[in-house]
């Protein structure tokens, strides 16, 4: 069962083949990830595919502990990286694998790459981060929404009116100034994502554009996977819809 993971055996995996498709959308906060996931889900469902959506920090197992740790800022970098890995492993085994076994498409709003990048900018080695997530399933496609830090800043302010402590990497003590820290942190992450994109074969998409343009681009990249034609541009009705989800969903920032 190591053929579908990044090399580490996952004990207790079902023997049935995983017939579903694993589609990952990666990108920073403000890259339009959540909007794109919602559009993509709609598009796939219209075509008749069952879609299960997943993201970071949504497992029942440790999300409360992660929230608590983020409030208190008391955990060390290694501890925090490992706590996130528990959350991911739980979702992988209890949600992603069963859905793929049932033939569904799993649409992941962020995946191990974000967790790896965050761990590495906080001092972990790339080797360690890659090995840690060696048990992760290889996605069928990883779409990377690449947006400039100025765009990310603009969208964060437009949406929340301020910058988030963690998304600005304030725990790294790069600067006492939130804005300066934000840019320094995003630069470090972006450097890490460049490496990850090459290492894991991301489909990089220019996310400095409007959601419809990004979506059309993503559709083109996914079409071969489903043997489908990209649909015409979204109707005004569908384009601006808020994210739709069956399960409970949390704020996308993790």
């Amino acid at each position, binding site marked *: 069962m190591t053929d579908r993971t990044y090399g580490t055996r996952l004990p207790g995996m079902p023997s049935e083949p995983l017939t579903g498709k694993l589609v990952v959308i990666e990108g920073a906060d403000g890259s339009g990830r959540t909007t794109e996931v919602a559009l993509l889900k709609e598009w796939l469902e219209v075509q008749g595919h069952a879609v299960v959506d997943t993201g970071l920090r949504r497992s029942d197992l440790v999300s409360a502990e992660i929230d608590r740790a983020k409030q208190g800022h008391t955990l060390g970098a290694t501890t925090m990286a490992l706590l996130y890995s528990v959350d991911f*492993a739980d979702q992988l*085994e209890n949600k992603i694998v069963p859905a793929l076994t049932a033939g569904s498409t799993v649409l992941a709003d962020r995946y191990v790459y974000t967790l790896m990048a965050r761990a590495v900018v906080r001092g972990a080695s790339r080797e360690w981060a890659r090995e840690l997530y060696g048990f992760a399933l290889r996605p069928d496609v990883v779409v990377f929404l690449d947006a400039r830090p100025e765009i990310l800043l603009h969208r964060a302010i437009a949406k929340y009116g301020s910058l988030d402590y963690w998304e600005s990497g304030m725990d790294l003590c790069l600067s006492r100034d939130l804005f300066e820290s934000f840019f320094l942190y995003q630069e470090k992450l972006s450097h890490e994502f460049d490496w990850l994109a090459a290492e894991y074969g991301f489909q990089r998409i220019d996310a400095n554009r409007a959601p419809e343009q990004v979506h059309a681009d993503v559709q083109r990249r996914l079409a071969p996977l489903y043997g489908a034609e990209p649909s015409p541009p979204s109707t005004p009705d569908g384009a601006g819809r808020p994210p739709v989800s069956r399960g409970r969903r949390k704020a996308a920032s993790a």
Partner: protein
Amino acid sequence: MPEASLPAHGYSGRLLVFEGLDGSGKSTQAMLLGKWLSSRGYRVFTTEWNSSELVSSVIRRGKKKGLLTPTTFSLLHATDFADRFERRILPPLRAGYLVVCDRYAFTAFVRDAARGCDPDWVRTIYSFAPRPDRVFYFRVPVQVTLKRKIASRQKMNYYEAGMDLGLSDDLHESYERFQSRLKAEYDRIAETDRFTVVDSTRSVEAIQAELRENLGPLLDHFPTGERMVHDG
């Protein structure tokens, strides 16, 4: 293939590790050794790796929902160990203490291997933990630990008995089988990880005397300080 060994630490303190099955007598020995070192004037910090509140609450929740798997179980303990390491082990080690650890990463190596996790993967995850200056492995037959456990009226817990592996429906039988797996794994890595094997079927006094003698050379050039700290 022998698994990768942990990296050496370059700190001024020394790391002394006690490993062995539950009921092997290692905690008693660690406590006695700590007292002795402290009475000799060394700066000592003793710490034990039992499940913290963070881990126990997650394990309780996971058990109730049947969610824990070998992988999440392993990562959860790695999280707990990292927290202990970053907070409890590394600071005194850097500050030049003799750090006495009742259980260390090796506990995870044997337990996770017994649950079927990839040993190389587990070792890589724990590679942030440096190689101890001494690892005492308290070797004892599983039957002896079982008798001690029953005599002290300790309850057997579900995961300690490996009940999640479905080895047996009977708690005692499962405990015995799981602990035998752990022992086999300890015995296997004893050589590659350069454990100092201690025959723990002997008297407490005899074992303690052996430990003190064994540590002589390591302590010869180690500076003394003034107080003992215990990580209650």
